[in-house]
């Protein structure tokens, strides 16, 4: 397999996930790239163009609802609440309590911790390797 195919596929998978393409299609796309460049001997970039350009040729299927959509919305909701808590706690750091619940320090730590965990999970989901060979 020509050099750089793994990096190409990792970038392609990340861009396709950002476009909301489902994992089955991503696995199909990355294995098609690997299969094609192995047969042709050309690099992925030569055969398919840049990952960004190739990713633009994919469209999200509108007739099949994404299985993870509920989790996706929930994760963004939690992240938004954590960001709001962080901002409110930060602006109220001279006060005794935030929202009548806890001290501003606790609010800042809690908001920052939730945001950090959310960012880590998001990063891991975007950069995970596409599925195993589709046979």
């Amino acid at each position: 397999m020509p050099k750089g195919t793994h990096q190409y596929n990792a970038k392609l998978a990340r861009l396709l996930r950002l476009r909301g393409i489902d994992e089955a299609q991503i696995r199909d796309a990355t294995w098609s790239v690997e299969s094609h460049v192995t047969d042709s001997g050309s690099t992925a970039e030569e055969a398919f163009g840049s990952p960004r350009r190739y990713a633009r040729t994919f469209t999200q299927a509108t007739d099949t609802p994404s299985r993870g959509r509920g989790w996706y919305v929930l994760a963004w909701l939690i992240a938004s609440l954590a960001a709001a808590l962080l901002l409110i706690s930060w602006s109220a750091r001279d006060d005794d309590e935030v929202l009548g619940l806890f001290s501003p320090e606790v609010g800042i730590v809690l908001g920052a911790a939730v945001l950090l965990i959310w960012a880590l999970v998001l990063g891991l989901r975007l950069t995970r390797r596409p599925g195993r060979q589709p046979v």
Partner: protein
Amino acid sequence: MLNQRPQHGYAIAQELERCGWGTIRGGTLYPTFRNLEAQQLIAGTWEAQDRGPARKYYHLTTDGVRAAAEHRIAWDRLSQSMSGLLGREESHDA
């Protein structure tokens, strides 16, 4: 091409190149396959290889066979019509 037997992407690209279509890049070929798959005119099946990664072999579906036959008839009509038109023009010029 897929009427005869299932083929994988690179083999189709090579066949097209042999027919004078020039080099067809994967970035052009596979989006076309995806469109045809979405229209259920072709279907692909992954097959493991003794060496190297698996290959996806594409074949015509029943709808695809029907559509190919219709396109062939339409093409033959167009081709005959154009040949007739060009023949008339040539005889007119002479």
